């Protein structure tokens, strides 16, 4: 054997051995990935059928790779390596998509031609709704990992440019038809005494990109999509199109750069439109106490691990409601927790700063504003975008309820009836008003009778 062969073999087997030994040190294996906001693959349960059909060993392979001790370092290394694949100053993550054509809004709402399907893939909570209307201030603060998150969202295609990323919108007509039909059904079931508002929240690319860039990438027109959905709704439904007001302010900080959500400022402009529709005067931003949380690295950062984003994180601004900052939420096990509507997330992880709003994604939450005594009430059917919107509503109602459409397991008409609610406000981002899976969950909230 040549000397170089010997050295080569020694070097290779030393490195292989070291990596193998590191992999074998069980206690070093992580269980969760903070940056990805998920639990890593658990060690599989041994079953005979799992051995026979190979599912046990498949999970074992997955577990081994997913929880390898040097995982974080290697993922960063792999990311560095991928940055050498080409000029990645601008990239699109996700495959080349195309939305459906958006027809002109019809004047007569069509009947949906498909059966309502059972939602799947999302954990749902037990029905809640037995909370007392008045609550004490929060007495306990959870650990610094943040508000317990009850579920994750999957990001669609995104456009990444330097330290900023943007959600891309592709219209899905059947989902949009079904969403509008669900809202119409809500109106039919709950009757004229209940005011229904629909606020479809545009995604960042539709508001921030030039029209020409949107066309180049083949994005669906978000304004036209909202127009279309609204056109399908019963005239008695207050269907808002907040596209124009956001677009008019698109040189402001309306969306985060490292996260898919809008900012409280974006939500504020939507709130002013709602006030206009309701015929009440909106509060001005300077009336609220402002809280600022710096160093926010959101979902886009988790997705890309972009060094540019890391060097230039987002800042979360939140506006504390005047009437009360107290709320109660019920988690998926129906455990009630007292909380702050604008919660101090100062010491939270960098990825958890958006959790400052409205208790984050809990199935059911409630706030009572003692400054208002007219018995007024509303329920917001929301996704995580809605969290930034809800604080502005607090100063307009005595009782404010909000339910996360993905996790709330009761029905909307029952809640409205039980709580004697006047206003029902759907506040979902455009993806959730058009994507089949999400709309299925909205459907579930609103049964025929």
């Amino acid at each position, binding site marked *: *054997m*040549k000397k*170089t*062969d*010997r*050295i*080569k*073999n020694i*070097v*290779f*087997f*030393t*490195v*292989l*051995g070291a*990596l*193998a030994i590191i*992999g074998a040190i069980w206690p070093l294996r992580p269980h969760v990935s903070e940056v990805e906001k998920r639990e890593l693959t658990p060690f599989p349960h041994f079953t005979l059928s799992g*051995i*026979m*059909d*190979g599912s046990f*060993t498949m999970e*074992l*392979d*997955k577990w*081994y*790779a*997913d929880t*390898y001790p*040097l*995982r974080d370092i*290697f*993922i960063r*290394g*792999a990311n560095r*390596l*991928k940055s*050498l*694949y*080409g*000029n*990645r100053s*601008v*990239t*699109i993550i996700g*495959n*080349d*998509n*195309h939305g459906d054509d958006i027809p002109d809004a019809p004047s007569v709402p069509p009947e949906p031609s498909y059966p309502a399907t059972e939602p799947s893939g999302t954990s749902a909570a037990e029905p809640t709704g037995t909370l007392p209307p008045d609550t004490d201030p929060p007495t306990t603060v959870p650990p610094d990992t943040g508000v317990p998150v009850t579920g994750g969202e999957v990001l669609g295609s995104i456009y990444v440019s330097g330290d900023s990323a943007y959600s891309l919108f592709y219209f899905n007509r059947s989902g949009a038809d079904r969403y509008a039909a669900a809202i119409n059904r809500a109106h039919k079931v709950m009757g004229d005494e209940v005011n229904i508002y629909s606020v479809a929240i545009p995604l960042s690319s539709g508001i921030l990109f030039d029209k020409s*860039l949107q066309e*180049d*990438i*083949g994005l669906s027109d978000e304004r036209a999509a909202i127009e279309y959905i609204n056109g399908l709704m019963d005239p008695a439904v207050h269907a808002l199109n907040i596209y124009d007001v956001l677009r008019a302010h698109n040189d402001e900080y309306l969306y985060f750069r490292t996260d898919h959500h809008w900012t409280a400022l974006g939500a504020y402009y939507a709130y002013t439109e709602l006030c206009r529709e309701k015929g009440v005067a909106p509060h001005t931003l300077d009336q609220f106490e402002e809280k600022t949380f710096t160093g926010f690295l959101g979902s886009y950062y988790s997705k890309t691990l972009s060094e540019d984003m890391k060097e230039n994180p987002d800042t979360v601004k939140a506006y504390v409601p005047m009437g009360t900052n107290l709320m109660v939420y019920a988690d998926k096990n129906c455990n009630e927790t007292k909380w702050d509507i604008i919660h101090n997330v100062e010491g939270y992880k960098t990825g958890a700063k958006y959790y400052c709003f409205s208790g984050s994604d809990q199935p059911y939450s409630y706030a009572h504003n003692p400054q208002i005594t007219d018995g007024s009430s509303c329920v917001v059917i929301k996704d995580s975008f809605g969290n930034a919107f809800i604080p502005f509503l607090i100063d307009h109602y005595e009782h404010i309820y909000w339910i996360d459409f993905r996790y709330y397991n009761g029905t909307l008409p029952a809640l409205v009836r039980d709580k004697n609610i006047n206003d029902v406000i759907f506040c979902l981002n455009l993806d959730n008003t058009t994507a089949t899976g999400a709309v299925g969950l909205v459907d579930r909230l609103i049964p025929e009778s």
Partner: protein
Amino acid sequence: MVFSSMSFVLVFFAVTILGHSLMPSVRAKNIFLLIASLIFYSWASLAFTAILLFDVFVCWFIALLLEVYKGKVRRRLLTVCVALLLSVLGVFKYLSFLLENLRLLTGIPKVVPDIVLPLGISFYTFQLISYAVDVYRGKVRAQRRFWVLLLYASLFHQCVAGPIVRYGDIARELHDRRVTGSGISRGISRFTVGLAKKSILANSCAVVADAFFTGGASALALKPVAGLWLSAFAYALQIYLDFSAYSDMAIGMGLMCGFHYRENFNYPYVSLSVTEFWRNWHISLSSFFRDYVYIPLGGNRRGKARQILNLFVVWFLTGLWHGASWNYIIWGMFFFLLLVPEKAVPDRVLRAVPGVFRYAAMLLIICLSWVIFRFEDLHSLLTVLAGMLGLNGNALYSAVTGITLKSNWALLLVSAVACTPFWHNLRLWLRDSRNSAARVIYRAYDVLHPAILLVLSVMVLTGNTYNPFIYWTF
């Protein structure tokens, strides 16, 4: 457990190489390898192991009889053996396809059973057929020990995705082989180059291929022309880098254990004709069809018409071997239709065409063939082919195409170069150079590249859930 998984590289491979080298004798090494191979095979599903054992048993038993009997009985025995092996393959791989087509034609049966394809069955069935035929032909002696034949068929290096190793090639090494330091050195180079080709290059090319080859026919109908070509090119790179990587790793592990498997790929993408391409692509499969189908049918010795029929049979079977779906048969026929006229043209005429044109034509043929290979749904396939020709009324180019190309150009360039003998020749040039600096670079490269490629590959594989081998189920 695919070769390019963390658990394979850092547990299974590491343990088996160590264990194999510690075994005191060839017999002990063989027993160790057999146990390891059965564990490896059972890892995918314990149930499949029974089928493997059955096939090997049939083959082992009949091969022994072939050495006892003479004359017509031998022929009948061989027929029974091959028929049994092909029946098992047929039931597990083609029955659903057959019934589905029958159902479309006649409405019967109402429900087509969903049969799971046992791992590597296409590969080990062909290995066992080659063994039985070679015993029948007297080219190799029948293996007396069942477990040694089982080791040949189940050896984890090549059992599930090739190369289709002939028994005669390793018959001697099954009993008498030496593991040398230089063999290990060559083996680890081959193994790590394969690992890096798969986990870094092929998997990344797959992302580019998937960028436009995504969705059903209605989504594919909207893709821009240049985007489809970009995906077709990336897919061609992916499929070679993926499949040849598997063979690299198999050959590398063989070397580390003292086995010498034949090459399965010889830079097929620099071929100047379809014949040359198939001489260099998946060599163990094309030589199988040559030796066990084409030549027994008469090859080119029974006149032109018969040769064309023989070619038709071979290419129909080659297509069908790759999968139970019409697109694979069309893919085989595509090559048949190209090979017949190519064989009719005299060599000197082909040579008169400038190489650059022949190369460009081959590149086009290769990309198109893989597009056919990719889409099992014929509607999607026709949509993509029409789209590539600009017949779907889409833009030639889109911003997304530009961004995809721009953000992957270096990857595609390196991958394309990896399909050529460039690195190999550069390495030899450095090694044989009289320049001392070049030789130092060569030595540093030679000593360090396996470890570096291992670390880079493991890095890329960590937490990477996208990792299926394209050829895994064949």
